[in-house]
């Protein structure tokens, strides 16, 4: 009951974000008013078509590409599936080796696992203790039959920003297609496709104040990629399905807002994240901070708290109306904790005590202060119950 009286402190923006009010307004008109199918010829349909193309230009501006290189999908997961499978199937006569990393999102990893069951070979490049990939490791893992490199721009769990531009250079030198899952970076840091040196890029609207259920794929002109969604001729015959007009309009509006507010957001979030991170490490004994110390997403703080478990911390914070996430086995729903933390060389018993705070546009310093006020007593209470924690 007390949770309902306390104001919500939402610190799980890496999981999803609230829709911006402007985005919501933009979307609304396409539900009951301008509801036409963009593929139809009458003016009601053309209105929807216009909205889709406006959104496309906005996304193109965010990525620094041409609008006809932007393809709308139902989200980051579809874009990742399309990139990996699409290149696998279009290039399988040339080779069957795919290079990715051990810390990718499951949308990439599980697609790779699926391809392995049908005759493809995948190398999962390891990471260091900060979840950082070495471009040299990517170069060394290249084979004559490598057809795709897929490396995420920034890791969703610990926030480390990967050296995508350097990896892009490695890919270009080897003549291999390069895809990046930029779901955690688009709208948060600069994501110009030429600077990143990518041939394909995945993004998802609900990670930057847009709606859930819509995303996009950037595909560099001239890239050969097998169609994923078969059916009607939408998206230059590359991705069938009646456009989710309101969702796409929302994505466009979110992209537009990102261009306006991204850099000032990032600066503010870095300061708040530093306050939170330093506060946690200073007030709670036996806590470690994870991810690269400097090359990291603004606003993402990840810690491991010794001697107690992530879900228990998460629910205690929930009782204070504070939303965070954890990489413990209980929260992943599997027997193992997060594959990202394990890939970083973290022992399982440390990974079980992980908590991720991901800040966003509307978080305030007062909210951070409140977290620093309530979290240490929660840790103390759980540690007093723990048979493994010794002061």
């Amino acid at each position, binding site marked *: 009951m007390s949770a309902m009286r306390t104001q919500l402190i939402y610190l799980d923006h890496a999981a999803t974000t609230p829709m911006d009010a402007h985005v919501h307004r933009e979307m609304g008109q396409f539900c009951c008013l301008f509801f036409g199918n963009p593929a139809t010829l009458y003016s009601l349909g053309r209105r929807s078509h216009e909205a889709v193309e406006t959104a496309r230009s906005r996304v193109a501006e965010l990525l620094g590409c041409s609008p006809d290189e932007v393809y709308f999908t139902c989200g980051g997961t579809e874009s990742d599936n399309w990139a990996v499978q699409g290149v696998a199937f279009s290039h399988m006569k040339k080779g069957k080796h795919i290079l990715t990393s051990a810390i990718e999102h499951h949308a990439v990893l599980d697609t790779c696992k699926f391809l392995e069951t049908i005759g493809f070979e995948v190398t999962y490049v390891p990471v260091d203790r900060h979840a950082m990939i070495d471009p040299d490791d990517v170069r060394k893992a290249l084979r004559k039959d490598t057809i795709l490199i897929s490396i995420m721009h920034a890791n969703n769990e610990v926030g480390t920003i990967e050296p995508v531009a350097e990896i892009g250079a490695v890919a270009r030198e080897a003549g291999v297609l390069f895809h990046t899952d930029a779901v955690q970076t688009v709208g948060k840091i600069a994501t110009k496709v030429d600077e990143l040196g990518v041939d394909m890029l995945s993004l998802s609207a609900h990670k930057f104040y847009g709606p859930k259920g819509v995303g996009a794929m950037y595909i560099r002109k001239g890239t050969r990629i097998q169609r994923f969604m078969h059916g009607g001729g939408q998206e230059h015959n590359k991705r069938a399905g009646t456009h989710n007009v309101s969702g796409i309009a929302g994505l466009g509006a979110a992209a537009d807002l990102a261009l306006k507010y991204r850099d000032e957001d990032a600066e503010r979030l870095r300061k708040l994240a530093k306050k939170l991170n330093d506060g946690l490490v200073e007030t709670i004994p036996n806590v470690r901070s994870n991810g690269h110390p400097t090359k990291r997403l603004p606003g993402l703080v990840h810690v491991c708290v010794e*001697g*107690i*478990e*992530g*879900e*228990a911390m998460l*629910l205690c914070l929930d*009782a204070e109306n504070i939303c965070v996430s954890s990489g*413990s*086995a*209980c929260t992943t*729903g599997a*027997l193992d*904790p997060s594959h990202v933390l394990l890939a970083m060389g973290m*022992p*399982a*018993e440390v990974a*079980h005590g992980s908590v991720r705070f991901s800040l966003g546009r509307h978080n305030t310093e007062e909210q951070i202060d409140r977290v620093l006020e309530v979290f240490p007593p929660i840790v103390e209470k759980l540690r*007093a*119950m*723990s*048979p*493994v*924690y010794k002061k």
Partner: protein
Amino acid sequence: MYSERVMEHFRNPRNVGTFEDPDGVGEVGNPQCGDVMKIGIKVQDDRIADIRFQTLGCAAAIATSSMITDMARGMTLDEASRISRNDVADALNGLPANKMHCSNLAADALRAAIEDFKARQAKKA
């Protein structure tokens, strides 16, 4: 996901702690799995006179430990060692399927404490 009773036992766990001089201690699980339960008992006239627990684990782990210590208090050692994981889950008004292993662990920890008590008695004899 969790019943109100599970949340209640998680928020206000009963019988937390250790004994300076326990009659039996059982510890199960391991930190690699993220679940460790330690139950200590004081025995009088073949009954559990007092019981305490410490647990590293999720809400289900803490709630099942709390519940089983509540159930076992006052039982004979025989009754207590027959508490099953379903008894604990039922007493908590159900657990999600993937959390049933926590109630298993709680029952195992209690049985281990009882076995430890018996082993100590056998040594004394």
